[in-house]
Structure formats: C-alpha cells, structure tokens
C-alpha cells in the first residue's frame, strides 16, 4: 500500500515536471523532455502488439514514417494545419493496419517479425522513390516555434498510452491478449477470436507511432527517408520496452524514462556507435534482466511484503 501510494506520488510529480519544464523556454530542456515523451509513447505503442499480444514487431517505424510524411506533405503541398494532418495520418494508419494486420498476423511469431522488418524497408525504399515525398532530398517544413506544440502533442499521446494500457491491463481485452500470447491454440479453443484480438492490438499499436511521427516531422521541420524510417528509433523503442518490462503497464514508462536519458547522452558523445551500443545493450539486458525492471521490482517488493 505504501509502495503504491509512493508510486502514484512519483507519477504525479513526473507528470507535473513534464508538463511545466518546457515553459522554462530552455531549448535543451525542451528537447530532452520531447525525446523522453516520444520514446515512452513509442514504447507504449510497441508494448501493445509485442508485449501484450506477444507478436514482436520490428516494423512499427513504418507507421511512424507514414505519420511523418502525412504532416510534411499535408503542410507543404495542401497548406493544412499540421495537427490535422497528424490526426489524418493516425486515421490512415489505423485503416491500413486492419488489412495489413489481418494478412501479417497469420504468420507465426518469428516470421511476423521478419515480415514487419521487410515491410519497413519496403516503405523506406518506396518513399525514396515517390516524387510527392521529395525522394531522398526530403521535405522542409516551415520553421518557427514548432517544438513546444510538437512536444505537448507528444506528451498528450504519451499520457494516452499510459491510460489505454492501464485500461487494457485490467479489462477482458487485455486478458484475451495475454491468453493468446501464452497459448494461442488453447485460447482459441476457449472461445477467444484469435485473429480479431490480435488485429485489434495491431491497429492500436499502429496508431501510436503514426501520431508520434506526425509530431516528429513538425518538431524536426525536416523529413527524409533515412532519418524518418530510422532503425535507431525502432531499436531504441524495443530496448526501452525490454528494459522496463514487456507486457507490463509501467514497463514502457520506466524503461523509456531511463533509456532516453542514456540515449541523449550517448548520441552526443558517441554519434557513430549509437547502433552498436544499443544493440549490445539489448543483448546484455536480456541476459541480465530478461523480464525487465518492473517485474523484478514487483517481485522484490512482494518478497519484502511491502506491496
């Protein structure tokens, strides 16, 4: 009980800090808060399909890219407000994820992962070749005071991720997903519509990167295939969810908070070896702490009789 109350107090404090810190106007603080909120939110999105439903996806960056280009193209060619484009990107990705999920989720675990990896590469190359996306030269968005707006957009999505996951963690849908993850055939026998539940999780987990990609384009004011369909972003998202604990409610938050600070200091100090370090980090984490921080702490507290 004490631990629970302390946890909520920390959570409230964190939210207040994230809400107010950027008002200081300090560019470094804004960028640090933005990176944190972005990765926590991305990790929540990834956690739905890969943590709860148990289908590892290495291609969620596809939706991130579509969201980013929706904003870049909508703003520069059609002169629409960016948040409208970002929202439309989210809707488009949700609609796209239905047939895509229905097709891809027929694949058994590891082949779904490979298929999504292939999809992300295909999307990157196609974007490179499509004239409306500016090809490899990319698109410049009108610069200005974009960062703060993009930040609050991202923070709102992050909070949405926490709330949605909290709901799923408790309701029947979450229970169905976990049953499917543990034993798809047994769950099917007990009356769980396997495809339907998995596709629902896939659609939800596609909306997050899509909306976040839209904010990212507005934040950076520049999109280009390699930096948008970024393997770094995908890799870090996965690493954060693993660190915190996949398939747990607080895992993405804890993992994202810690790892985004690490990432920020790494990328300034060792820009070249970023992928190498995060790749090694995933390996070390999985060996040292396979279930992540949150389950480990929960087990510790339970043992001590605190929680």
């Amino acid at each position: 009980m004490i631990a629970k109350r302390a946890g909520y107090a920390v959570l409230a404090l964190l939210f207040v800090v994230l809400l107010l810190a950027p008002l200081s106007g300090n560019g470094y603080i804004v960028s640090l808060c933005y990176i944190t909120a972005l990765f926590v939110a991305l990790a929540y999105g990834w956690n739905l399909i890969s943590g709860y439903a148990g289908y590892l996806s290495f291609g969620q960056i596809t939706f991130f890219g579509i969201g980013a280009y929706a904003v870049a193209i909508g703003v520069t060619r059609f002169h629409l407000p960016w948040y409208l484009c970002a929202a439309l990107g989210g809707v488009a990705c949700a609609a796209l994820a239905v047939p895509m999920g229905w097709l891809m989720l027929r694949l058994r675990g590891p082949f779904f992962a490979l298929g999504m990896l292939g999809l992300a590469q295909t999307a990157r190359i196609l974007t490179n070749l499509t004239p409306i996306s500016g090809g490899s030269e990319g698109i410049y968005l009108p610069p200005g005071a974009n960062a703060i707006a993009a930040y609050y957009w991202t923070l709102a999505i992050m909070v949405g991720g926490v709330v949605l996951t909290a709901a799923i963690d408790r309701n029947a849908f979450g229970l169905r997903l976990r049953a499917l993850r543990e034993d798809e055939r047994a769950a099917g026998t007990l009356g769980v519509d396997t495809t339907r539940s998995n596709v629902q999780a896939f659609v939800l987990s596609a909306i997050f990167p899509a909306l976040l990609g839209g904010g990212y384009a507005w934040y950076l004011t520049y999109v280009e295939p390699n930096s948008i369909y970024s393997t770094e972003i995908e890799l870090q998202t996965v690493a954060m969810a693993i660190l915190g604990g996949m398939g747990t409610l607080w895992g993405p938050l804890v993992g994202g908070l810690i790892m985004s600070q690490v990432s920020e200091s790494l990328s300034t100090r060792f820009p070249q070896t970023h992928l190498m370090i995060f790749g090694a980090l995933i390996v070390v984490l999985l060996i040292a702490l396979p279930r992540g921080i949150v389950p480990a702490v929960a087990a510790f507290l339970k043992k001590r009789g605190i929680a």
Partner: protein
Amino acid sequence: MRPELVLQLTIDGLLLGGVFALAALGLNVIFGVTRIVNLAHGNIVVLTALSAAIAFQRFGITPIEGLPVAMVGGALLGVIIDRLILRRLPEDAPTAETTSLLLTFGVSYFLVGLSLAIFTGDFRSVAYLTGSWLVGPLSIGKSRFLAFAVAIVIAAMLGVLLRSTKIGRALRAASQNLDGARACGVSIDRMRTLSFGLGSAIAAAAGALLSMIYAVNPDSGSQFTLIAFSVVALGGLGSYAGALLGSAILGLAVSFVGFFGNTQLGAMMPYVVFILVLLFRPSGLLGKSVA
C-alpha cells in the same frame, strides 16, 4: 524487349542467385538444427563482403584468396553468437522463442553499428576481374561467373559433408528429430554450436563472393537475412533443388527489376518477395531441413 536482353538479364540473375543460394544454405543449416530465426545472418554476409572489399582495396587480397580466412572468421562469429549469447538465455526468460529473436535482433544491430564504425556507410564492392566473356550477343561477367562457380562448389562440398560424413549425419539427425538424435547418442549441444559455426562460415563465404558482384553497405544486412529466409521459404526447408530454385527466382527478380526499374527497386525485391512468399505460403518454412 529484345530476346538477347532477356537472355542476358536471365544469365545475370541466375549467376547472382547462385550466391544467394549459398547464403540461404548457411541459414538452412542453422535454422534446421536450432529453429532459431537468426536475424544477424545477413549481417555476417555483409560484414564479410565489406571486409573483402577493404582487403582488396588496401592489400590487394582477392576475395577468392581471402575465402578461407573469411570462413574461419564467420565460423568464429557464429560460435560466439551461440555460445556467448544465445546460451546465456536465463532460465526465467519469458519464452525462449521471443527472447532468442530479440537477442539476435540486438546482435544484428550491434553488427550494423560495428560495420558503420569500421567501414562508414558507403556502398562497397571489389573491382576484381572486371572483364567479361563475349558469347555471341551475350556478355558474361568473369567475376560474376567465378563467384557463381565457387558458390556452387562450396554448396556441393556442404552437400557431401552433410550426406557422407559422420558429423553431417549427426547434424541432419538433429534437424529431423532432436529427441531421436539424442537417443542415438548425438550431442545436441555440440550440434547446435556446430550448426551456428558451419552456417555462419557459409554465410561469410557468400559474403566474400558477393563482394565481387554486388555493392553493399552496412544497412544491407537485413536484405540478406530476408533473402536467405525467402529462399528457404520458396524452396521449402527441404531440398537443395528447392533452395536453388528459390535463389534463381530471387536472383531473376533483382536482375530484371534492377534493370527495368532501378537499383533501389531491385534492392527492394528481397523484401517484397519475402512478404509475398510468406503470405501465400505461411507454412513454407515448416518443412524438413537440409541439415
């Protein structure tokens, strides 16, 4: 379309396919015995291809001369991935399949980062044997032909190893029925490490040969992982014939699309073929294995 052009592209595609087949055979050995989807497989191909390019450019060592060293290096890398990483999978890991997939995902990006740090992001290949033989209206690239021929020789040697030696029989037994093999006194533990070593050595050979005909950069790794899985899926996890057929289809796709579209579209083919194969043959990877 001129018939000579079609024939020319067909030959180019088939020769390229021979090297793809070698990469796929390496994967087949690993996947057959361990059932682990090794996402780092293509990175071993690419790492070796880039090393071969540098070895030629700096020291004048041709990929053929470097082949033994490349294969030893690949074998070492495979054994390290198995012994030092995949074996450390803790008892309380959520599920072995998920965790080993994530582990090879981590290894894969570690190797991409390592290649980027060493070789930068430039596309590289080896300008060795640049001439070609003219056969009527067709020209057959010498390096292309040599890479293909060596790939076939190595594939044949692997076939002999798997079919006619004691170790090969043990590997095949392990891939067909783990418990049965164990009951017959085969050390599954050793077979697992052996399959990683052997499969990665073959991937490295494919990489060295590839450097003669195809430019790669560190990001190309996933392309070759998916090429290898597509070939296995197209041909079923069964026969050499299937693997060769699958590689031929992929080689042709890259060659034709690369010519009529552009090289980027050509490089996209492995991904597209992979997704199509899996969608139409979701069970393509569940057949028997070569090893």
